[in-house]
């Protein structure tokens, strides 16, 4: 586990600049919000679970979450097909806040090209540490 600015980043995961984590098991990519991501999002009131089977492309905003009347979008780090969505979140959206790397996972995607993950950050990447430090400064303003 790597800690950046008090936020935890499991070493096995990949990270986007939008504070989404991705884990890989074969060609299945599971994604969620990072601990920092859910912190800046605030208390999540709704999560829209995308339909299974839907085709999505990398960087497409394919699902939404709502907190404080703010509807935010989640971008996919990979292209592929939605295998499963965490429908529990439709009832217990607070799991995203309480257990972002566990029960608060968002979707599982059958990836068509795992190489799309190559450009993502790893927990020990100095670029990720810089990004989080910069973002944290902004969110203090």
């Amino acid at each position: 586990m790597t800690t950046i600015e008090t936020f935890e980043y499991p070493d096995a995961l990949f990270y986007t600049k939008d504070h989404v984590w991705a884990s890989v098991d074969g060609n299945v990519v599971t994604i969620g919000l990072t601990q920092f991501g859910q912190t800046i999002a605030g208390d999540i009131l709704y999560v829209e679970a995308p339909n299974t089977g839907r085709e999505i492309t990398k960087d497409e905003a394919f699902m939404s979450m709502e907190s404080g009347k703010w509807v935010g979008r989640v971008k996919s780090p990979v292209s592929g097909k939605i295998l499963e969505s965490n429908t529990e979140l439709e009832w217990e959206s607070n799991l995203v806040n309480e257990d972002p790397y566990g029960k608060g996972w968002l979707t599982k995607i059958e990836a068509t090209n795992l190489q799309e993950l190559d450009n993502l950050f790893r927990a020990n990447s100095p670029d990720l540490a810089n990004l989080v430090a910069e973002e944290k400064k902004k969110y203090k303003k």
Partner: protein
Amino acid sequence: MQLFHLKFVDWLESQLIYHAQPRVDVEGINILAPNSPYVCIGYHQNLEQEVDLEYCKINNIPVFRREVGGGAVFLDGNQIFFQITLHKSNPLAQGDKSGLYQRLLEPVARTYEDLGIPAKYRPVNDVVTAEGRKISGTGVAEIGDYIVLVGNLIADFDYQTMTHVLRVPDEKYRDKVFKSMTENLTTIKREIGFVPSWDEMTKPLIQNFETVFGKLESAKLPQKVYDQMAILKLKFESKDWLFMKRKTKAEENTKIATGVNIVQRIFKAPGGLLKATYELKENKIYKAALTGDFFCYPREAILRLESALEGADLSMLDKLMTNFYKNNEIETPGVVPSDWVKVLSG
């Protein structure tokens, strides 16, 4: 920053414009009002659960699902809307949610002050009067690479119609929504006794926004916005969009203002069905009505129980119920104090 001061426009256009702008890369501030009433639901809401569609149909009130968050609202020409579309790279769009809300809503609070109504921004996304009454509705959507904040100046408000367009479980609940709304949501007319002219309201609004955005340049909406609106109209008017399946509510819960909700919950106790309807304000119960299908001796004990709940904190219900049963003459066969706690707090 461009200012699109559109005044009164078709109700559907008043929504389509700000949904179109981010899709065709047009930053700016719109100031407008719909020329006829309609109901607008939040992106994550279930239309059939939130809105009395029969009432809307009979009264010719159209319904729209926005991409912005929040709840179902009745909107009309007595509300002046500001719609701010900012690219995410815009320095004013930086920082956390509360920071952005504060930056863009403080000018709105100052506008109310200019109109003679002491008001302030209250985190996260409210503008309230000195007495704490809500006086502006707001919300945000991220659309593409843009953040769109929408909100209103409430010149006057049709509380009656608002409470009728909402789908509620029964008239008692509707009555509570109406009373709570009139107590917790106010308007310019209620505060100063009259509705100022359009210019009297929008001139200070524009000036106050200029303290944040710098000089606003009056502009005409580009044709590409209208072209995009024509495309979006098909989507937003489709049944698939309006009736999009959303989370089913486990309880009736109508948000009136931040921290103020009307709640109705039902619990099946061994001795019968219990139904509790109440106003929940800062986690405290007010104006509780306890009904259902159960026996209570003497009957008026239930009225005493309703009174005992006035101002009770949800976390103290266990103790309150136990003490009430201990200190009062009350018999409710098959209904024990903990059943009331369950129906009241889940």
